[in-house]
């Protein structure tokens, strides 16, 4: 095949890919598109990547890589116009729902009691609505007392948050760095509880200007109480 012929073929495939992405309600994998177009996967991959990288000035639509495939959507610049036309979108997820999803995404398969333990609150109501929205699904049951249901995130979860895969989320190490950096920036000069700090803690409970019923606090041996 000559170079111009190869270029023409790629153009042809790219237009076909565009058609498939236009009609598909969910992200399409390169393989699915290659099957429909009866074309080589490598060429389809190249064609779809060209679409992803296409000059934004050329179209109000764009192609994004999401959930292990590709999806066509409107460009964010036109969100206001589209919203006026199609009306309100579904409610945003609650913070509780996002926390629950975050924990499940990192620990799947995991049970609700495990989620509750991390959040410090009951998550069953939240989990139910996440199940209904198709953002999590049951993966079976844990071999533990009560045989609790194991949950994991779905492909819809990736689509909803525009993630290519779970690897798009920061890994555990990166997360821990994020949190500890934040903690350390606040920790400057901290160490043992200083005497002053301890005194302040005590004074908060027993204000110095308030009458002290039994005089200064003393230990059993009669030594003055050491602030700790």
């Amino acid at each position, binding site marked *: 095949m000559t170079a111009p012929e190869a270029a023409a073929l790629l153009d042809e495939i790219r237009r076909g890919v565009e058609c498939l992405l236009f009609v598909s*309600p969910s992200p399409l994998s390169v393989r699915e598109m290659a099957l429909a177009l009866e074309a080589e996967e490598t060429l389809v991959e190249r064609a779809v990547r060209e679409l992803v990288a296409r000059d934004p000035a050329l179209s109000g639509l764009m192609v994004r890589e999401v959930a292990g495939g590709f999806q066509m959507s*409107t460009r964010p610049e036109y969100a206001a116009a589209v919203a006026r036309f199609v009306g309100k979108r579904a409610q945003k997820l609650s*913070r509780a729902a*996002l926390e629950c999803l975050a924990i499940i995404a990192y620990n799947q398969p995991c049970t609700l009691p495990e989620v509750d333990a*991390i959040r410090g609150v009951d998550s069953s109501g939240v989990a139910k609505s996440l199940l209904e929205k198709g953002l999590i699904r049951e993966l079976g049951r844990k071999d533990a007392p009560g045989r609790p249901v194991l949950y994991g995130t779905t492909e819809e979860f990736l689509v909803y948050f525009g993630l290519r895969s779970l690897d798009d989320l920061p890994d555990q190490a990166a997360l821990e760095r*994020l*949190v500890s950096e934040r903690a350390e920036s606040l920790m400057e000069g901290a160490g043992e509880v200083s005497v002053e*700090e301890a005194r302040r803690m005590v004074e908060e*409970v027993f204000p110095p200007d308030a009458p002290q019923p039994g005089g200064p606090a003393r230990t059993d041996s009669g030594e003055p109480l050491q602030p700790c």
Partner: protein
Amino acid sequence: MTGRRRGGAARERQDVVPHMAIDLRQESSTGFQVRLQQFEGPLDLLLHLIREQELDIYDIPIARVTDQYLLYLQRMEQLDLDVAGEFLVMAATLIELKSRLLLPRPPAPAVEEGPDPRAELVQRLLEYEKYREVASLLRDQEETCRLLYSRTVEVDPEELPPVPSAAVTTADLLAALKRVLERASAEKAPAAVIPRRRITLRLKMGEILRRLRESGGRLLFHDLFSPERTRTEVVMAFLALLELLRQRRVDAAQERCLGEIVIFQTAGEAAEVAAL
């Protein structure tokens, strides 16, 4: 919450719990504010108190945080908000920590002191904070994606490719049941009064097996319910089907996405029938 309201709360508290009033004085001097926002739980509230005042999470001034925490719970009660049990458990934990830290230490500091009693709480807070970070990251992603509209097509089920695995999940069965129930309620009940019939699971199971035999061992899920009129009958038939599936006397398969679910006799059941 306005400053005026906070002042009002301070006066009220002064009559009841003296040391709470002192906390409120400190509040104005340190710039600490209790905003009555909704917290997701005790850990969320604690983290908020710690981060907002830029306290060192590895060295939490427990006494101060405990008082602020309790203050928050009292405000919640003043506003007749339900204080969930989890918040109270945390309050108890904090008070316990506070009392342990206020106890005099053994005179000889050389003796092994054991782990900091706060360590476990700190660990939980850090673990929770990690996921709170992810949650806010997901929130950003959500905001971005909400600006993008993708096609949402009404798909013709006939056009869908075959299901990769013909296995039917409980969810599929439930969805199918929902469709049948919708149909059952859509069909008008006859005007005549019909005496209530007694329907048992055993009867329904027998009926399903009989109808399977009559139709050559295969039945559409849909047809299983066609003569049913009342919700009770539909529900009993569904339960009977589930029981038969559990006992492996029938099997279910779906040939395409959103397609009809087919119920058929298992080989074992067919053999049993033949033997009779």
